[in-house]
């Protein structure tokens, strides 16, 4: 009993040491007196080590006391009692969140240490670590979130920092365009998430996972939703997860995200960010149990994504895109596992995959040397030619399939055609109407036509 009274304190330490780091980095930049690289490194290391040890201590306490779930309530951020609205912050420590938090901290720590020397003397050093700190806070928050609001908060921070880091090289047009694309898809996912959160709130007037998923510890919970609501909420959450994890039809952003410095690609798109969507699915997995239709949607989405990513990955000629698609393949398979209810397997898969992929991405620039080493060991050139299965296909099927792979499943142009264009068209129309309306109101009857081209091209 006495042991577990430590848990709230440790929980606060876990979350607040990254937050303090973020504030420190932000504040020193704000007042225009950036600290030395060394000092920043010390702050980073202390923040992560402190947070990691607090989490490990909680884990130890939970193991000793045999508790399988601990909740640290941090109160309401916003409370409007009259309409029963509160933005409630609480942390949950269970078999899902503790491994995820440890994974996030270990990887952020390692990649952070890597980035400290990788970005040594880079002009954007401070800017990088500002985004990195934001990401760290977001990841810890999201992993440990006990309410859907908390999860959303972390989710947003992760999204914002990811997009900023994709556009890290802001003086070149491609990173900025790709950053914008990532950001737009993240916003779509956020909107779906928010819709799901509102729907849940509407049902229960609060977003506590312990209330929503029943009082048993993960993964045993049982959602207290009707099948219809579960399907609705689940679909929204699935869209959110698909956006964040780059599943079909949003896969196009993942290879485009490889614009920032190598460590950011490693931590974000190899390891953590890309798993956040599947983590969300794991967190709300009791909802999936409620609806067989929903579960099968999850499985199908995972399968389609996995196959597409596997095919597209095979034709990539640059190491970072190839790794991006390899990541996506595994993430999709994890989604399938979740759909089948294999939650522990999915969790182990996430952890293993994140570790492996970040190491692979971190050492991606050493590819030439690795190939040479392998060549020397084997004694001949490495030429993969084509997978055996391709040989079975007819020539025209081969061409069609290859074309589809090199176009990355046409997903980007599909999104452009189905979402971007109609969206722009719709809002240009509103624009025209509004002008006409105001013109009419102001008495001038000559309607000035507005060219559609004024709208954004992206």
């Amino acid at each position: 009993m006495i042991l577990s009274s430590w848990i709230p304190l440790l929980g606060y330490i876990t979350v607040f040491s990254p937050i303090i780091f973020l504030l420190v980095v932000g504040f020193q930049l704000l007042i225009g007196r950036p600290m030395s690289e060394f000092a920043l490194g010390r702050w980073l290391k202390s923040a992560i080590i402190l947070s990691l040890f607090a989490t490990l201590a909680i884990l130890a306490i939970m193991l000793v006391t045999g508790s399988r779930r601990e909740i640290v309530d941090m109160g309401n951020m916003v409370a409007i009692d009259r309409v029963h609205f509160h933005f409630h912050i609480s942390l949950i420590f269970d078999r899902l969140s503790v491994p995820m938090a440890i994974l996030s901290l270990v990887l952020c720590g390692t990649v952070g240490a890597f980035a400290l020397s990788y970005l040594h003397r880079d002009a954007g050093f401070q800017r990088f670590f500002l985004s990195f700190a934001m990401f760290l806070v977001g990841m810890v928050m999201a992993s440990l979130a006990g309410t859907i609001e908390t999860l959303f908060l972390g989710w947003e921070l992760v999204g914002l920092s990811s997009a900023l880091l994709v556009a890290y090289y802001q003086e070149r047009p491609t990173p900025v365009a790709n950053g914008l694309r990532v950001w737009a898809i993240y916003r779509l996912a956020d909107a779906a998430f928010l819709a799901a959160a509102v729907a849940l709130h509407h049902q229960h007037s609060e977003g506590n996972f312990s209330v929503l998923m029943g009082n048993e510890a993960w993964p045993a919970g049982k959602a207290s939703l009707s099948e219809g609501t579960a399907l609705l909420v689940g679909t929204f959450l699935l869209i959110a997860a698909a956006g964040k994890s780059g599943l079909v039809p949003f896969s196009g952003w993942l290879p485009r995200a490889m614009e920032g410095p190598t460590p950011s690609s490693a931590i974000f798109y190899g390891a953590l960010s890309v798993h956040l969507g599947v983590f969300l699915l794991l967190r709300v997995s009791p909802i999936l149990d409620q609806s067989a239709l929903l579960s099968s949607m999850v499985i199908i989405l995972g399968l389609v994504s996995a196959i597409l990513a596997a095919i597209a990955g095979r034709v990539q000629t640059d190491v970072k895109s190839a790794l991006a698609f390899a990541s996506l393949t595994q993430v999709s398979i994890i989604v399938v596992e979740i759909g089948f209810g294999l939650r522990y397997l999915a969790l182990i898969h996430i952890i293993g995959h994140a570790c492996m992929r970040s190491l692979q991405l971190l050492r991606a620039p050493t590819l030439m040397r690795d190939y040479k080493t392998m060549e020397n060991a084997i004694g001949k050139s490495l030429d993969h030619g084509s997978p055996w299965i391709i040989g079975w296909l007819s020539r025209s099927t081969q061409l069609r399939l290859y074309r589809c792979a090199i176009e990355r499943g046409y997903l980007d142009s599909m999104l452009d055609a189905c979402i971007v264009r109609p969206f722009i068209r719709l809002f240009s129309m509103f624009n025209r109407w509004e002008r006409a309306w105001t013109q009419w109101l102001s008495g001038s009857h000559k309607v000035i036509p507005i060219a559609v081209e004024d709208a954004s091209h992206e």
Partner: protein
Amino acid sequence: MTPQLSSTQATSESVAKSALDLVHHAIEHAKHYLPTQGPIAVFIHHNTLHAFEHLPFDEAVLEGFRTYGSQPYWPESRYREEMARGRILDTDLQAVVLHDLGGSAANDVLAGTSQYNLRINMLRDPVLTGSDAELRWLFAESDAIERFRNGVDPMKRTEMIKATRRWIMRDLQPHLSDTEAAIPSSLKSVFEAFPMRKLETWGESTWQQLTLQLLWRVCQNGVHSTRPFSSPSHSFNRHRDVLLKLSHFDCDLQVHDLLIRFTSAFLDQGFAAWSVPQRSEGYYQCFLSLFAEKSPWTEKWLEPLKAIIASERQSGANPTESIVRSLAALGVSQNDFEKYIKKTLLALPGWTGMVEQMATNASWTLHPAPKESLEEFLAVRLILDRLAAKHCLDEHLSHRAIPLPDLLSIGSSSERYNPRRKTVQQRAFDLFQLAQRSAWSPHTLFTWTSAEWQNVVDAIGSFDDFERRRMFHLAYEYRYRTQMLDAIAEHSVFPLKMPSDVSVQVITCIDDREESFRRHLEELDSSIETFGAAGFFSVPMYFRGAADAHFIPLCPVIMTPKNFVEEVGPLSAKQAEARRTQSRMLLGIASKTFHLSSRGLMSGVLTSLLGSLNAFPLVARVLFPRLTAQIRSKFGRLVRPTVATQLRLEHAEDSETTDKGVEGFTLEEMANMIERLIVDIGMQDRFAPLVLVFGHGSSSLNNPHESAYNCGACGGGRGGPNARAVAQIANDPRVRALLKKRGLEIPETTVFVGGYHNTCDDSIEYFDIDRIPLTFSSRFLAAHEIIEKARRRNAHERARRFYSLELTCTDEVAQRHVERRSEDLAQVRPEYNHATNAACFVGRRGRTRGLFMDRRCFLTSYDPTTDDAETSILLRIMQAVIPVCGGISLEYYFSTVDNVGYGCGTKLPHNITSLLGVMEGATSDLRTGLSQQMVEIHEPIRILYIFETMPEAILSIMTRNDLIDRYIGNHWVQIATLDPNSNTIHLFQGKQFELYTPGPGQLPTVSDSLDWYRGWREPLGFAKVQSKGFVSLPKVANEVLR
């Protein structure tokens, strides 16, 4: 068929034929402008502006700017920073401006202001400029017309105010109220703002204001009637440029996105698990078959592609004809073919250049491209350009209804804005600033005639941004050159600085990185003598190590080796060796399988489920790179070949002979090679008992450019095997016997030992030490001890440039630090490679021994006293050092002055693609040149060669060798000669050598190198290291060179 008809047909055919010829010709012409960097696995430093070597350097860099849009020099602000920190002195500027103007320096732009004065004034303080709007703001909102500019000499200020005051009081006052024309009305309006009645009571600040306002008004009036100084504009537009201007939409983005994806797939050297189908049919055909089908989700701009491909196929699918068709569809007239094709090929220079390289210069790669690939690439590119331009017109400019073929004419008729042409306000502002600095008071300006105004405007205009930067650059070079030549003049006085009793001779590569290593060796033991020779040591060969898959050439790229040399294990351990090979192979296959399957579908599941095990190497490698490397190497030893290997150097009876070459060398060839080496470095008449030969190379992790850090003379390979071969050959008694017959006697008491110096972690490895006669072991061990010390000191000296290490660290800490660097995945600057290279000394070491040159100088050993009358040895050496060191210097120069344009930008987002090169991020052009991290400490100057010879010898060599003549005559490199018998120096200026008069400077004297470089991060000047050991021998009798 009527005769008439057939004649029209004939004409149209001949027209078509000439169009095809034009296309061919244009491609041939444009080819030269593409980057010539090949696959990154073999990185060869070369002159980035190789295509312009026929022009003088100054013109070439401007031509480079016009062709690639990349900067010729650093920005002016950067040079000003260098001035502020004392790297460029005012005297340097004076000297170079004076020299550059030559006879016209004293010519007056105006009475009292010479050309020289004007230019110096413009260099000393920045002449600011801005758009008209900015200038308006400046005068409306700042105190530009209330106070003199900062930095204006107070004396001059007072003088100007006084002169103005006199002028007004004496001449203008009476006329102020006149209605007619003594003073122009525009000036009168200036006075209106001042209380003219109280003229006599004005204070200093009022007079100052009036002076400045008058000045500004006079400048504006005066400049108004002048023509702006204009330089010819060379702009030529592609459709994309016109469209970008009209619609702000860049259609190259779409085209490149697709083109890069397809080109990288086509050129892929085996990275992708599935290579592009129909690749063998060539670029164009492969593209046609892949994109022939239309899918429902094809991007909108690509929709007409299906129809185009069908029509291409119908008309025979010939790439050249396709180019002509595309150009016609785009409305490009035949006269513009050349310009248009050049500009189109240069729109994506990296990839386009790689297509050409793979087609013509890469027969050694796994998948070279077919010969005509560049043309096919252009055909495809133009089809895509057509589609993108059409799409852009339809989508963004539909309201203007411009037909595609008319686009170019619209582009050329629209106003040609020349940014270098200054507006009236800008010209006036230039003058306004200069007037303050030169104390031209308003009343002087007021009296100028319009011809005088024009004169001044032209003089200012002709000294534009590029010219000013050129002057700064020359001054920047001048500073280093003066220091270097003064140091050499003072230091190289006779007697030669030679060890009294040579115990060990060390031969290293001429590499600038070995300068410090050699210096430390000499400092540590005065009986050590060092030599520098091109690092393949005259042994050109294809080499394959015992654990290597392929033969690689180890010689300069201009040579093609004819002999194959292999490293083989001992016969006695044949079986054990086979077992090792077997287990290496198994491990290799295992790691390949893991590598591929981790990216696969189901196999990926397995690997990633076990992936958490990766957490250990991940954390270990990032946090403890050195320790991890040590552990890995312990395990690696289990499968590595035994140390007891040897080189199969000699040609045997049963050796294989292929069309590529033969296995091994004959004794005769071996003797030739050793003779060449020994004679070139001038070592023939003195052999120490122990001769160490060190090849060099570098190893680092996470570094796609790793090969660039290796030995340039070994074609980007590691020079260890060459050193080993030299030792093995020179120790061979049969070779020695042959040499003796030719009059070159290597005493029996001399033993050669080969070694390898890793310049990244400063480790030294020896070869075949078990074969050193036992009577020599103690000698070798003694030398080994000194070398150990020297390499640690070398590491320490290098470490001063690394900001991540304390300046006060010890040798051991520095050594550990550089070892860690080479094994650290997170390290983007494993070493600084050739950065800071600045000079090359070709001559006897005795003349530079003991001179601290800060690792900035290539050192080539050459003894002018043993060369023949034709200086054939020197010619041979120059043929190597001029293009190699010159290429290194120029590549560093261009990558430094414009790292984004000529270099490959920052290394951090680099992404290896197709195993051929690096892109920035997800997709970009293939980036060539050097990265920002490689050049950040470099000082961009052209290399300064000092040859110990007579000027006539160089001039004669220039007439005999075209390449050398181009480099020297066009000033791509700086050349000086040091007289073999005195310390007289001649410097090549313009078209001839001029006697150089050294300054009075006194070299600082220090007791050892550490004494000099201690506590300092920046580049260091020269110093005389007066180590205890130096003995000066009496002047060696020299034969006078003719």
